[in-house]
């Protein structure tokens, strides 16, 4: 053992994992219902097979890939990440997936690619609340290319060693552990490399409350509540929220020179 810096492994926290039951019954997935328990109850309608993901935009190898094929491109690895919801609760989740950067390298972004845009499946038969206008469907998210290439950023196909349940975003979702949970778009069918900052669903719905960056930041309050503290699911007492959800050492440099109060 040569000091704590060498022992630090950002890809796996040794904090107690949130029980599987809680991870899979307390979800925000508005396409499957608005209350936290709704997605688990309604997820039956979502059929994660067969499933095709489209890669397009500023890449040299645009293509459509079957999910089974895609999951064989890269070895699946387990990573235990903290997940901080913008609503001030948090979890510790063992994800199963692969780094998004590996996929992007394979697709070969062109020099014009600056951002990555993601879309969720659009199909009200599988995601019935897409018949309501709570948000503009399909759900959209985005990352700057350097964020997307960061080794912490992953596409997850499973949790707790099993494939993702529908309510957690089967069959493929984004996990960006230093950002608020809503950036982790679920049930992805489209990944496009683009030149300009893409529109993102929560930002479109309430731009003052949900920014494009959505980095976990205890110093920038949500207009309606403080972000200084969070409740880890299972705890009674709140704990202080850490800048970049505790991943500052790895990712803070991505935002050097930016005013994170403006770019929230």
């Amino acid at each position: 053992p040569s000091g704590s810096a060498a022992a630090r492994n950002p890809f796996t926290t040794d904090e107690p994992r949130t029980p599987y039951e809680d991870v899979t019954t307390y979800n925000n997935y508005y396409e499957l219902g608005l209350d936290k328990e709704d997605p688990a109850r309604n997820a039956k309608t979502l059929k994660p097979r067969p499933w095709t993901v489209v890669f397009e935009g500023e890449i040299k190898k645009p293509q459509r890939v079957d999910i089974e094929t895609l999951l064989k491109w890269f070895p699946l690895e387990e990573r235990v990440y903290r997940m901080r919801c913008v609503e001030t609760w948090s979890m510790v989740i063992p994800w199963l997936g692969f780094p998004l950067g590996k996929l992007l390298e394979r697709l070969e972004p062109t020099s014009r690619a600056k951002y990555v845009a993601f879309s969720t499946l659009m199909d009200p038969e599988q995601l019935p609340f897409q018949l309501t206008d709570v948000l503009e469907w399909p759900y959209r998210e985005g990352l700057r290319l350097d964020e997307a290439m960061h080794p912490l950023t992953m596409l997850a196909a499973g949790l707790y060693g099993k494939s993702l349940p529908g309510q957690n975003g089967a069959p493929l979702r984004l996990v960006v552990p230093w950002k608020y949970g809503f950036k982790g778009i679920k049930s992805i069918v489209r990944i496009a490399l683009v030149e300009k900052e893409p529109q993102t669903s929560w930002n479109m719905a309430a731009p003052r409350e949900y920014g494009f960056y959505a980095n976990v930041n205890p110093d920038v309050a949500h207009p309606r509540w403080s972000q200084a503290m969070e409740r880890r699911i299972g705890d009674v007492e709140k704990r202080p929220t850490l800048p970049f959800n505790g991943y500052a050492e790895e990712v803070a440099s991505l935002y050097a020179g930016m005013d994170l109060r403006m770019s929230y």
Partner: protein
Amino acid sequence: MAASVLPTPDKPAAPRAGAGKLGWLVPAIVTGGLVPAVVLAARAARGDLGANPIAEAMNQLGLLALVLLVLSLAATPLQIVTAWKWPIRIRKSLGLLGFFYVCAHFLVYAVVDQSLALRAIVEDITKRPFILVGFAGFVLLLPLAATSTARALKWMGFARWKRLHRLAYVVAILGVVHFVMRVKKDVTEPALYGAVLAGLFLIRIMNWARERGDKRG
């Protein structure tokens, strides 16, 4: 009619408030109104409030408070429309039950959610309109609860008492606004309470206009 009811030997049909034909009504409303609190407490004790029990308890208590406050404001319009007398008899119980749930809602927030961290609570109230609106509703309910007794009514005189208790409308509106501000996006449910409240106001206004017309005519 009341005379035909046989008085029991040791308990004559005294003209006590709440006694009489519908003497069971108020106790039934109070008991029924407290059932959700008992159910909630039992679920909490069993660990059956889901993954985020504190948020769940706050949501449920807040919703119950709003429902009861709106119901208490429905008493008079219901009487106007139906000419029934009984809604007025349960109005106070509904209002006090609503106050009970508002207190419980606030206590769970202050004691459990915020661990009585005074600075954080003060910051919430002063910096966040959403919390301020809810807190204002709570504070405005205090004088109403304090003057809910017959003695207070007598001491204040009916006109002044009535004027003070018009605050109940303000409180209910604040409750709906607090709810609207709390939801992340979908305002259907709070809008529903807002619509009911607006309907109740409309009945009162129409009645008031009619009475004025009658007086002139």
